[in-house]
């Protein structure tokens, strides 16, 4: 079995998610070969052939040209699977490759179950197994589903020549991320402070935990109303409706307006003194404890 890893490059750097593709290939125990539109200095470090198309010629985003590069590598290697990260790059390019090859695509694979590809559906409420019927298939992998491997050996780089034709599309450039008020809707981890934190001074404990978890600080309405945290952090129907991968509710009792705003979270941890608080019903893990005692210990552990 051979897997073509379509690595990703942006603004002079190889993206780390490329190493998740490697992990996936290792899970399958497949032979690896990679393709990258990038430059010599940023090729993935793995013990495999890497086809490199020159980003200076191809452009960082130019789907028609990138597709041609991937197809050229496919032509040379005849892989069983062509694998992308499920990213703005991967989900854009994968179907273009799939249709050119007329092969099936499985989007946002989260795992391999009995040899079939498992994907989430309906907001992760259901799972779906997909079985491509074509000889080879295109896959995109959910970010984080396959833990990235460490960079390995220097690759055997082989240059690809591709015809440069944008076919009606021109990449103009990047726009830097705005320094904006907190956008919780796209946060992967949210640690929310509720009234159980007691007073404004204790908010920093929750903020520290959020930082340790690599997430954003959220707040329940009473906390915002009391002006302990500013409104841009508010989770709930009158704040932001969120859908993080992990939601940690600290001292949030769980008013209906709050629950409605966080119920799309994939995994919910609630830390509350009251075992019967409504938030408990939403929680995958309910920690029955005083937030002020529990959170600092958890934060310390996470910070190592």
């Amino acid at each position, binding site marked *: 079995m051979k897997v073509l890893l379509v690595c990703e490059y942006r603004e002079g750097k190889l993206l780390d998610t490329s190493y998740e593709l490697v992990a996936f290939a290792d899970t399958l125990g497949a032979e690896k070969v990679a393709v990258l539109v990038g430059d010599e200095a940023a090729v993935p470090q793995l013990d495999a052939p890497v086809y490199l198309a020159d980003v200076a010629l191809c452009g960082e985003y130019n789907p028609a040209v990138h597709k041609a590069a991937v197809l050229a590598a496919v032509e040379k290697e005849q892989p069983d699977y062509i694998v992308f990260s499920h990213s703005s790059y991967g989900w854009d390019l994968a179907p273009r490759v799939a249709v050119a090859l007329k092969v099936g695509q499985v989007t946002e694979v989260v795992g391999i179950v009995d040899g079939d590809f498992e994907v989430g559906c309906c907001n992760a409420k259901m799972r779906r197994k997909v079985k491509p019927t074509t000889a080879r298939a295109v896959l995109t992998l959910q970010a984080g589903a396959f833990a990235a491997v460490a960079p390995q050996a220097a690759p055997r780089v082989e240059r690809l020549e591709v015809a440069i034709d944008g076919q009606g599309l021109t990449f103009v450039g990047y726009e830097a991320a705005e320094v904006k008020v907190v956008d919780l809707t796209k946060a992967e981890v949210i640690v929310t402070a509720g009234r159980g934190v007691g007073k404004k001074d204790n908010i920093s404990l929750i903020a520290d935990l959020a930082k340790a978890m690599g997430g954003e600080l959220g707040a329940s*309405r*009473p906390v915002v109303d009391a002006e302990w945290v500013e409104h841009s952090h508010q989770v709930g*129907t*009158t704040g932001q*409706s969120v859908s993080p991968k992990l939601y940690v509710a600290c001292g949030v009792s769980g008013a*209906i307006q709050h*629950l*409605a705003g966080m119920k799309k979270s994939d995994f919910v941890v609630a830390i509350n003194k009251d075992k019967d608080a*409504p938030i408990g019903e939403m929680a995958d893990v309910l920690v029955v404890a005083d937030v002020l005692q529990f959170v600092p210990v958890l934060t310390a552990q996470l910070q190592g």
Partner: protein
Amino acid sequence: MQMTREIYWNVGHAVVLPMYLLVLAAFTIMVWGFWARLAVWRQGKPLDRFDRKGLRFKRMLAEVFGQSRVVRVTDGGLPHALFFWGFMTLFAGTLLVMLQADFMAPVMDMNILSGSFYLGFSLVLDLAGLVAILMLGGLFIRRFFFRPQGLEIETGDYWIHALLFITLISGFLIEGARIAATELTQFPELARFSPVGLFVAGIMAEISPDSLAFLHKSLWWLHFALVLGFIAALPYSKLKHILLISANAFFAPLEEKGALATIDLEDEEAEQFGAARVTDLSWKDIFDTDACIGCKRCQDVCPAYNTDKPLSPMQLVKQIGEVAATDSEAELVGMIGADAIWACTTCGACQDICPANNEHVNKVIELRRNLTLMEGSFPGDEVRTAVGNMEVNGNPFGMAFASRGDWAEGFELARLDDGDEADILYFAGCYASFDKRNQDVARNFIQICNAAGIKVGILGKAEKCCGEPARKLGNEYLYQMLAMENIETLKATGVTKIVTTCPHCFNTLSRDYRDLGLDIETEHYSTYINSLLQDSRLKLNPGETQHCTYHDSCYLGRYKDILSEPRAVLNAAGWKIVEMDKSAYDSFCCSAGGGRILAEEKLGSKINEARVEQAAETGAGILVSNCPFCLTMFEDGIKTGGCEDTLRVRDLAEVIVERIGG
């Protein structure tokens, strides 16, 4: 000597013709003024407020002569009523004099103003004039020296006070001059029945007869001129309220309180829904703006105004009037402001307290209908989401509709959506179905019913939001969609009685759904539990007396006049109620009405905190409410308002369920 007096004494009968001609002229000016105003009112859409004329007329007489709406607020209201009664008595007296002098005497050669009747007549009129002067003086001091906050002073107010004051004073001076020249010496027994006149005459006693005659004649003409001025000025000044507020007592709705016009969504000709311009309102809405006397009572009781939101019901009415009078094409929202329109909780306090029978809430709803149905706008994104959730899942939270009946798991309940039968259908509503706290209330209510041997059924997942918040936000389309589905479901169950724990559901099902074809008796649980107690089906064990304060939710108290039943239930359960200052019809909103339950309260201070504070001030420690919206808002308000140590909020069902027994 005959106990009577000579009418037209000193001025002579020659004045009769010019006098009547001048009165006619004054009346012409008055009628013309109102006539000109008619065009402004007629810009509004048709509305039948001339049906059931007898009933309307009776109400008008009662309200005008009884001053019942005026005395609702004693400060200002009581002096006004006394002044009105005094002035009205003088007016009636003058009419009687006119009748006697220019009809009874010349045509029938009779004198009704004689004998003991005349004595009484003199006395009553003198005292009425005295009361009128005293009250006017009081009102003058109140307005110009101790002006209550929010009361506006216009230039016209000075003129009106002067006109009325001089008219009244000159009346007594005329009387005094006449008595000084005649009765004082000739018939003192008679003069005693005009005590004020006699007092004035006493002061004038030293004046020579000629001078008295001249003084009398001059004052008579002055008094007459002022009366003419009064008549002519009616439509052009605040005095118009005398006629317009009286008329509004006739025009006031006879429908149930809180009734809104149900829009015909099948009408394919309709191009405008709600009020974008003043011409989209009814003529009565424009008429109201002229009837408004600016007493600012509505503003005083408005929860939005009192928490620094950009809404004053009085200003809203005035602004509509201003647009109607100047530029009927202008966009009303531009004048009033969307924030003001969205700030209303439809609590109805303004309308309830308005002495002029103005209908504020319906105006707000019409303005909102325009914003929602014509412009697709919302008070905030959170409301947009909630409304979307109501469309998809039939509840504002966006919870799966199929989980609506989950709260009842473990209870023996008939599932009316599955064809079971029951004594009553409990229409739970969204909060009792999905909000944990209110789910407890629902379960408590079921326990109470079970204790009384009542078999309760629910609709489970077949129930949808009653549509009340949507309707109050102006979204008549969504309201009717939800209503039609509910009505179909409710009718299919075959139940004969529906009980709700939510006053909003209760109002909607018992009143608004009637327009759409529901005719099943609907009751609120407070009256239902009360009747179970009355019938001895439910027995409570009062136990030790405890103290609480009780919040009349707007939609139960003000809108449905249900004030005593919930109190009776509380008393029966051994609770002693410590009333808040603002209770019963004066109750202060919890902030959640008018669809505001779905909206964030971004402007001003928090209404729920204000109310919770009022409850805490009673010292009762426990606040009992009867509405899921109120309960939710008070729970919030207690936390954010810092009343956690002094106040707990509980629902009526929660405090009753503990006392089941006996």
